[in-house]
């Protein structure tokens, strides 16, 4: 008997169809603005999925995800601008540096119980942001690092590349979430003491999950740096983490694919509300409150699950 669920074919087909649709949209509705919005949405998708893999599955909420994003982006900036390294090296290097930060931060903080992990990560992100300003001779201070080279010059091609990486990241993390590893992470969310009574080294699982989560956040950071062609300390801001957490909640926490939808939905919503001027933030906030209050499990994953169950109940 199969012990672990694995990826079901309907979800895979649905995910692929969504990716293809997103890939085709800019060719049907041409315009650099739309491509830009979708590129940023896809990068937010990578950040949201990576947050959900560790925090959504284990329930240990990371309020300092922006630290890994910033570290990844600055790694790309330093390598490319200050050391003249080719832009493609940014991607693996940013992942590795962010993973290293995941290790050194996860090792002490994930042993903490209660809200202390969240607070420690929040503080670490704030400290990193301040350090970027304090050591301005090296980091560029408020201005950050400018003139980063693009990975791919054609904007549409770069969007497709980012979209492919979003698809691969989601596929890999969703597969892990439905494996033995994911079951243990969900058990940790259920009850840590019972996990210990089941003989599981939960701190190790949490640390390794944070390292994986950090790696993909760093990858997203590098993609963002090569899209904006500059990085600034604002990337470390707490608001970045909060935005990502909101995207995960709207998408459906602990579902992996849901946050991708959450990221797309909220990014498009933000852009769509630009015409409302000063009312934009208020409308955005009210919509968020409505979603979080009336749909506590999110909107994307539960909707998809309903559609899938309805489809599988239909007589063939």
């Amino acid at each position: 008997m199969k012990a672990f669920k694995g990826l079901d074919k309907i979800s895979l087909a649905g995910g692929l169809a969504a990716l293809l649709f997103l890939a085709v949209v800019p060719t049907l509705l041409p315009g650099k603005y739309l491509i830009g919005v979708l590129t940023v949405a896809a990068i937010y998708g990578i950040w949201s999925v990576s947050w959900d893999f560790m925090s959504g599955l284990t329930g240990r909420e990371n309020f300092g995800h922006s630290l890994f994003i910033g570290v990844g982006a600055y790694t790309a900036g330093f390598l490319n601008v200050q050391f003249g390294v080719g832009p493609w090296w940014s991607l693996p290097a940013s992942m590795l540096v962010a993973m290293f930060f995941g290790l050194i931060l996860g090792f002490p903080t994930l042993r903490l119980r209660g809200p202390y992990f969240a607070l420690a990560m929040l503080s670490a992100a704030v400290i990193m942001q301040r350090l970027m300003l304090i050591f301005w001779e090296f980091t560029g201070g408020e201005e950050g690092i400018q003139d980063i080279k693009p990975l791919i010059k054609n904007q549409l091609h770069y969007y497709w590349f980012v979209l492919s990486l979003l698809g691969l990241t989601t596929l890999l993390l969703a597969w892990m979430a439905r494996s033995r590893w994911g079951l243990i992470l969900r058990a940790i969310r259920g009850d840590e003491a019972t996990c210990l009574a089941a003989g599981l080294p939960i701190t190790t699982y949490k640390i390794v999950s944070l390292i994986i989560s950090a790696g993909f956040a760093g990858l997203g950071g590098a993609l963002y740096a090569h899209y904006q062609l500059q990085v600034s300390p604002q990337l470390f801001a707490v608001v970045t983490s909060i935005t990502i957490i909101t995207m995960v909640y709207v998408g459906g926490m602990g579902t992996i694919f849901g946050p991708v939808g959450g990221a797309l939905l909220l990014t498009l919503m933000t852009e769509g509300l630009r015409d409302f001027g000063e009312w934009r933030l208020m409308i955005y906030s009210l919509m968020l409150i409505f979603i979080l209050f009336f749909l506590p499990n999110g909107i994307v994953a539960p909707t998809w699950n309903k559609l899938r169950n309805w489809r599988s109940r239909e007589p063939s």
Partner: protein
Amino acid sequence: MSRALLEIQHLDKHFGGLHVLKDINISVAQGEIVGILGPNGAGKTTLFNLITGFIPADEGHVSFRGHSLRKMKSNAIVGLGVARTFQLCRPFVGLTVLENVLVGSLGPRVKSDDLGQRAMDLLDQVGLLAKAHTPSELLSYGDLRRLEIARALATDPELLLLDEPFAGLGSSEIEALSTLIRQLHKEQKLTILLIEHRLREFMQLVSRVVAIDFGEVIAEGSPVDIVNNPRVIEAYIGKQNPLSPSHDA
């Protein structure tokens, strides 16, 4: 008596100014069902927490099959073959009954090619097969007790520590669970350490009793010896004999 599977020597524990366990010495032989008896606050669950590494001892020594458990982490102790249940049921909320048992199978001792079938067999053994795909938070209290035991069994233990498995159960559920515990002991040769307040059922299950009061062992012996021990009668049982048919716990 065969050689000791679990050896507890001079175990001592303080919680601040409170001396919760005082120089505890207990030896459990392989294949025994040993009962730990005592009033609330006597230190029984603390003793379980010390054996399983959930809290560290101040003084003393606990060994399992000759391995010192003193500085071992709780998950590593499970790896040696010591499993436990909790006084209050602690299922993995959000997981199904089957997934709860599967988590128990993911520890270091289990070497099965078919973890899914193994988990289903365990659910069948405890009578929860029909509820395998039910979310664990929807189970009745009696079923949660069974799930706790199935999850502990999934770790492939040699020594099973059951902390008040009958708490909150009705008479028929207690009878069924008693039968299951006897079956586990007989068929799987499990050694069991049991804390329970339901004296009649407790005394019928165990082969030996260790009575604790205010953190001290006040008596040790067969159920018959214990129910007639004046210190145990004074500290816990009272004058009514739990082994007599008229006793209603």
